[in-house]
């Protein structure tokens, strides 16, 4: 008897095999007809084999909130933080129509490596500068969001979490339009999207849903300079915290006020980001700042980073500094003095639950130094050391917190990764 997960893996691998066979056959046929025409199907892939060590033993260091565990508590050296493999099939039935399917296998919320669909969309080019897409796309919130999983494309082991943790929603099932304008040496790209998304969270955390999500992304390129401005708006629902706030609502007006302020039930969330990069080839500097606002326990958060590197042949040493701030990390909660004695115990428990939620908002700064070595034409080895100061009362980007965990303090993370494309 196969579990649903195994059935899915079987199905996906069958589909992928079929696509691969078809593509090979069509490619061979196409190659005979005209070696220089865009092939009908093309297959490419990417991956990361990474190892991470974290100095905090009472919590796990992970790369996203979607992962159940990582380095520190669960493993001394964890391969789950960054390792992944992705395969993409692109189809070009006509010069105007294209389709892309990208499947990634990485550590999921339930600790399996069951592949999931990262991209699956059909694109139609109305004019050379105007195109529409329908299906699943990755949101262009940040400068590097759409290739976040393809670590080969950026210098570091992973994009700085101080900024990239700000947006809990990273994909959209919907439609988007892209318009490109060329004025002199300037290339302006404007993208607008509308859709929704759903992700499962680890540790029985249920789902995180984004509805009526829309956003705009503007990218300007001028020679070696790139500017990116992004805006995202969504209505966020988090199943995991519902029971806590339902319980608060039993405590009359003061409980209802707390629940309304902090619950994550169809709450508007907006994120605005500005990023820029200057990369004349020999060296690069880049930085991003992001700000997210929501009337939920996520509250208001701001993050930024600045990074620079110098290319010495195949070796690129780099340095990055990032900072994340969030508003209130604690709340007095229900006023216990006004409650009848039998209710005090439950109320104190709820207050503690609320405060532990608030303390999961990252307040931290990280200094990273590392190097990338392009040892072959399609693979790079990266070594990176991160030193993080976690703010008082915050657990930073750490998760899977153990009873012995103390908020705040210092954190040292060692990362090694081989990133490749094929």
């Amino acid at each position, binding site marked *: 008897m196969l579990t649903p997960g195994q059935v899915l893996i079987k199905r996906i691998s069958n589909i992928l095999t079929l696509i691969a066979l078809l593509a090979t056959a069509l490619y061979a046929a196409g190659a005979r007809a005209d070696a220089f025409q865009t092939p009908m199907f093309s297959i490419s892939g990417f991956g990361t084999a990474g190892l991470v060590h974290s100095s905090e033993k009472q919590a796990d260091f992970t790369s996203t909130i979607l992962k159940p565990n990582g380095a520190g508590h669960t493993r001394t050296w964890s391969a789950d933080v960054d390792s992944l493999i992705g395969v993409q099939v692109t189809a070009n039935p006509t010069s105007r129509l294209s389709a892309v399917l990208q499947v990634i296998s990485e550590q999921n919320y339930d600790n399996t490596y069951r592949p999931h669909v990262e991209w699956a969309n059909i694109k139609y080019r109305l004019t050379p500068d105007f195109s529409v897409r329908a299906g699943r796309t990755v949101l262009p919130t940040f400068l590097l969001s759409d290739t976040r999983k393809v670590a080969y494309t950026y210098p570091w082991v992973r994009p700085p979490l101080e900024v990239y943790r700000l947006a809990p929603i990273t994909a959209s099932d919907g439609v988007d339009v892209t318009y490109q304008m*060329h004025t002199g040496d300037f290339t302006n790209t404007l993208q607008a999207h509308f859709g929704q998304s759903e992700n499962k969270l680890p540790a029985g955390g249920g789902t995180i849903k984004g509805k009526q999500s829309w956003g705009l992304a503007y990218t300007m390129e001028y020679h070696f300079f790139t500017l990116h401005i992004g805006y995202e708006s969504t209505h966020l629902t988090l199943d995991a915290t519902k029971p806590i706030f339902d319980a608060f609502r039993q405590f009359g007006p003061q409980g209802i006020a707390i629940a309304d302020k902090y619950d994550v039930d169809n709450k508007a969330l907006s994120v605005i980001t500005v990023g820029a990069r200057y990369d004349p080839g020999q060296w690069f500097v880049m930085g991003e700042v992001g700000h997210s606002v929501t009337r939920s326990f996520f509250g208001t958060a701001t993050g930024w980073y600045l990074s620079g590197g110098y290319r010495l042949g195949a070796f690129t040493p780099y340095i990055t500094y990032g900072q994340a701030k969030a508003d209130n990390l604690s709340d007095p909660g229900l006023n216990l003095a006004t409650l009848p004695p039998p209710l005090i115990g439950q109320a104190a428990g709820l207050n503690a639950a609320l405060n532990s939620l608030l303390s999961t908002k990252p307040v931290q700064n990280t200094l990273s130094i590392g190097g990338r070595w392009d040892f072959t034409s399609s693979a790079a080895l990266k070594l990176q050391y991160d030193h993080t100061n976690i703010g008082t009362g915050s657990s930073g980007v750490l998760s899977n917190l153990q009873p012995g965990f103390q908020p705040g303090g210092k954190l040292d993370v060692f990362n090694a990764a081989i990133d490749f494309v094929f």
Partner: protein
Amino acid sequence: MINMYRIGLIVIGLLLGFGSAEASAQVVAVVAVKNPVTTLSKSQIADIFLGKMTRFPDGREVEPIDQGEGSAARDEFYLKFAGKSPAQIKAFWSKIIFTGRGRPPPEVSNGVEVKKFIAKHPGAIGYIDQKLVDDSVKVISVK
């Protein structure tokens, strides 16, 4: 002595990442003889090969033709015209491919094949070692 001095310069150049464009043969951008385009800027040529520019300035569609990965002409071309190393070019195309935004130009194996391709495709643009230039192609002057 002179050879040692030159090798020394090349080594320093490579270490600094400037490559050997100055030290070895020149790579030039070439189009079909009948192509009315005579002049392009360095960044226009780079943009054509990086898929950022799909038309010549006069509006006709452009067909860039690349040389295979690892060929000296290719490495030199991208260093000279785009200021990018082979790894940076690979990373650039990975970004485009894995977001479904496009594919790199088709490739042929060497400069002679580039000339053959251009002879058959009036809108093509390629790059070859200057030594391979003959009357089958026209060199684009870089402004």
